C-alpha cells in the first residue's frame, strides 16, 4: 500500500513538470503549428542557466529560476525573430527543418560550452525529505511541483483572459484577419514563441536541481513534450496539463509494476492506443469539410 502511495506521489510530482513542458510546447506546436524541435534545447538551456547562476555565480535559488526563465523568454524571442519570422506562412515541414537545424546547432553549442560532463545543481532545501506516513517526498521536488502548478495556472489565465491571449488565438487561426482587427502579428508570434520557450526553460530550471544537467537532456524532454501535447490534443492547455499527469502516472506505475526498463515505452504505447481510439487526442476540436 505504501508502495502504491509512494508511486502515486512520485507520479504527481513528476506530472507537474511534464505538464509545464507540454504547455510550453502546445503553445508553439498547437497554436503556431511549428514543430518546435528546439523545445528540448530550451529546457536544457534553462537547466544550464540554473547551473550557471546557482553554482558558478552563487545567486539565490528562486531568483535563479526567475532569471533562467527570463533568459529562456529572451532566447525564444531571438529564435523567433531570427529564424521563424522570415518563414511566416511557410508550411509545417519547412519550419520543422529549420527547427531541427537549430536543435542540432544549439545542442552542440551547449556541448561545446559546458562539455559532455554532467553537472549537478545544489538545492537550498534540506536533504531530509518530508515524511508523511509511509511515503516521503523531497522538499526540492515539492517546491518544483508548486512552482510548476503556479506557472500552469498563470499561462492558462494569460491565454483565456488577456487581450494578448485572445490576439494569439486569433492570429494563429487567420493571420490576415487578425491583422485587420489591429493585432500586431509579428509581436504576437514573437510573444507566443517566447512564452512557450520561457516555460520550457522554467521546466529545465526546476528539474535541473532534481536531476543532473548534460547536453542531451533535452532530447527525451522534447519527445515527452510532444507525447503530452498529442495526448491532450493540439493547442489545448487543459489537455496538455492532464496529458502531463497521465503520462507521469503511466510511466511511474509501469515502471513500478511492469518493468522499469519499459518506463519510457509506457507513455508512447499509451499515445498509440489513445490515438487509435480517439484520433484527435483527449481534448480536441474539429474543422468541417465541404
Amino acid at each position, binding site marked *: 500500500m505504501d508502495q502504491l502511495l509512494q508511486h502515486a506521489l512520485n507520479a504527481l510530482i513528476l506530472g507537474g513538470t511534464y505538464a509545464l513542458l507540454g504547455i510550453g510546447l502546445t503553445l508553439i506546436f498547437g497554436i503556431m503549428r511549428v514543430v518546435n524541435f528546439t523545445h528540448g534545447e530550451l529546457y536544457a538551456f534553462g537547466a544550464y542557466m540554473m547551473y550557471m547562476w546557482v553554482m558558478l555565480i552563487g545567486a539565490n535559488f528562486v531568483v535563479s529560476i526567475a532569471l533562467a526563465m527570463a533568459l529562456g523568454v529572451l532566447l525564444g524571442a531571438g529564435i523567433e525573430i531570427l529564424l521563424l519570422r522570415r518563414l511566416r506562412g511557410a508550411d509545417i515541414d519547412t519550419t520543422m527543418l529549420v527547427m531541427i537545424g537549430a536543435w542540432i546547432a544549439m545542442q552542440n553549442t551547449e556541448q561545446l560550452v559546458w562539455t559532455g560532463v554532467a553537472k549537478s545543481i545544489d538545492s537550498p532545501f534540506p536533504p531530509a525529505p518530508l515524511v508523511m506516513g509511509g511515503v516521503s517526498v523531497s522538499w526540492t521536488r515539492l517546491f518544483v511541483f508548486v512552482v510548476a502548478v503556479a506557472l500552469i495556472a498563470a499561462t492558462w489565465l494569460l491565454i483565456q483572459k488577456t487581450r494578448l491571449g485572445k490576439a494569439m488565438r486569433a492570429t494563429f487561426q487567420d493571420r490576415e484577419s487578425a491583422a485587420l482587427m489591429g493585432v500586431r502579428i509579428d509581436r504576437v508570434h514573437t510573444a507566443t514563441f517566447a512564452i512557450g520557450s520561457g516555460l520550457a526553460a522554467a521546466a529545465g530550471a526546476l528539474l535541473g536541481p532534481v536531476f543532473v544537467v548534460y547536453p542531451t537532456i533535452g532530447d527525451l524532454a522534447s519527445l515527452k513534450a510532444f507525447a503530452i501535447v498529442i495526448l491532450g490534443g493540439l493547442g489545448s492547455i487543459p489537455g496538455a496539463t492532464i496529458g502531463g499527469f497521465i503520462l507521469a502516472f503511466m510511466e511511474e506505475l509501469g515502471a513500478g509494476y511492469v518493468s522499469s526498463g519499459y518506463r519510457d515505452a509506457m507513455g508512447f504505447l499509451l499515445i498509440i492506443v489513445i490515438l487509435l481510439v480517439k484520433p484527435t487526442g483527449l481534448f480536441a476540436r*474539429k474543422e468541417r469539410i465541404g
Partner: protein
Amino acid sequence: MLVVEGLVCRYGKVEAVRDLSMRVARGELVTLIGANGAGKTTSLKAISGLLTPAAGKITFDGEDITRASARRVLELGIAHCPEGRRVFPFMTVRENLEMGCFLRRDAAAIADDMDRLFARFPILAERRDQTAGTLSGGEQQMLAISRALMSRPKLVLFDEPSLGLAPNLVERTFEIIEGIRRDGVTVVMVEQNAFAALELSDRSYVLEQGRVTLTGTGRELLENPHVRAAYLGA
C-alpha cells in the same frame, strides 16, 4: 476622404495592380467592379495595410497611409471585411465579434453594438456560442460583416460581401450596407453582383488588368454598352 494615386502592387514579378487612381468622398458609396483577377482584392489590401504597394500614394483624411500598418489604418477608422469571409474558425461567434473591436476599450458601448448586430442578424445571436468554423457559408459571411462593423469605422472596405449568400440575404446585405452608409459611414465595395452594386452606388470604378478603365455614377455605368456586355451578361 480617401485618395489613391498611381497605385502599383506586385506579387513577386506579377503586377496585380498597375497605376490605379481613385478618390472617395466622405459619405459616399463607391463600388469597384471587374473580372476575376482584375486586382480588386489587391487594391483593398493595399489600402488596409495588408500589402505594401510598390509605388503610388494612399491618403486618408489627409494622412499618408501608403506604408502604414494594418493597425494604424484601423485606428484611423478604416475597417476591411475581407474576401472569403475569413472568420476565426476556432473562436465562437461572440469571440469573433470581440476581436472586431480589439482596439476598443469601451466595454459598455461594445455590448450595445453587439446587441444591435445580433438584432440585425438573429441567426448569429442563435449561434453565438458555436465556433465560427462550423457555421454555414452564409452565416460566416454575416459574421464577417458584423465583425468589421464592431470597430465603429469611418470607412468600410467590403470585398464581395454577397458572395455565396442566398438572394434574400444578398438583398439584406445590400440593405445593411445602405444602412451603414446612411449612418454616415463611407463604403468602398467590390462586387461581382454588378447589377445590385451599381444600382446601389454613388460612383463606380471599372477595373481591368489592374487599371481603372471606366468610371462614372452607377446609373451611367449600368447603361454603358461595354459594361453591359462584359459584366452584366446582357
